[in-house]
């Protein structure tokens, strides 16, 4: 169950509109209408995205029958973000080493050019 859940969270966050919705919900709870307003899409389309986020456990809906405000479960997001961020940081560490190597290679090439021209 938990691994399926994890995949659902990754899948939910793979979509740019849903990432944007999550970013906006991180500022505070909002109704579906509030969330749909800045997009060129219908309330129904935003509701569909919210359903995916809800099934992943990333958002919950308030009990207020009229407004049903959407609430971001920041802790769930935090766990996932930490995993991906950690993975990203490891890749970044590798690539910084590659940056340094590429600089050394450039310096070696310059030296070689100078030897050839002198």
């Amino acid at each position, binding site marked *: 169950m938990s691994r399926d859940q994890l*995949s659902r969270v990754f899948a939910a966050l*793979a979509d740019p509109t849903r990432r944007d919705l999550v970013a906006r919900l991180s500022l505070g709870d909002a109704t579906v209408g509030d969330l749909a307003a800045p997009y060129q899409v219908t309330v129904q389309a935003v509701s569909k995205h919210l359903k995916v986020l809800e099934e992943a456990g990333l958002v919950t809906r308030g009990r207020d029958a009229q407004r049903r405000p959407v609430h971001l479960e920041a802790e*769930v997001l935090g*766990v996932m973000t930490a995993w991906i961020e950690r993975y990203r940081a490891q*890749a970044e560490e590798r690539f910084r080493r590659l940056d340094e190597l590429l600089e050394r290679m450039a310096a070696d090439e310059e030296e070689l050019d100078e030897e050839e021209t002198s």
Partner: protein
Amino acid sequence: MSSTNKTEIIASDKAPSIVIIREFDAPRERVFRAWTDPELYAQWVGPRSVSTKITKWSVRTGGEWAFTNIRDGEEIASFFGSFHEVRAPERVVWTFTWEGEPDGVSLETMTFEELDGGRTRITTLSVAESFEIRDQILASGMEVGVIEGYEKLDEILARSA
């Protein structure tokens, strides 16, 4: 400035894949060489605390590769695979297996794209066998192991249900 080059990670919902994108302030030929010359590759791959010993490296279509990570004189992990395609200076495709999970294999495609100003973008696409394995790979670097991570997630999800 290399400090402005940010690594981007995308975990897709369409396929059990991980995409890593990064730009480099160096021309494509040089970046390709740093990736395919075994002596150069060993200098940057892996975290700083680990050194890499390359044991096989036939960098050509159909060739094989293998390397071992060493920390404080101790072998901590070994990996192997085949070069499915080597097309200088734009593309390398290889299979990738961690010896700790010898039946597992992912397919990795590295694309080297020439950018303006003598810069290069590398896109690495890794495709695992299942979403479950992809997620384990994503979580593999965590200090808390994957199991504790799942337990923590279970707890949180149970609370938010």
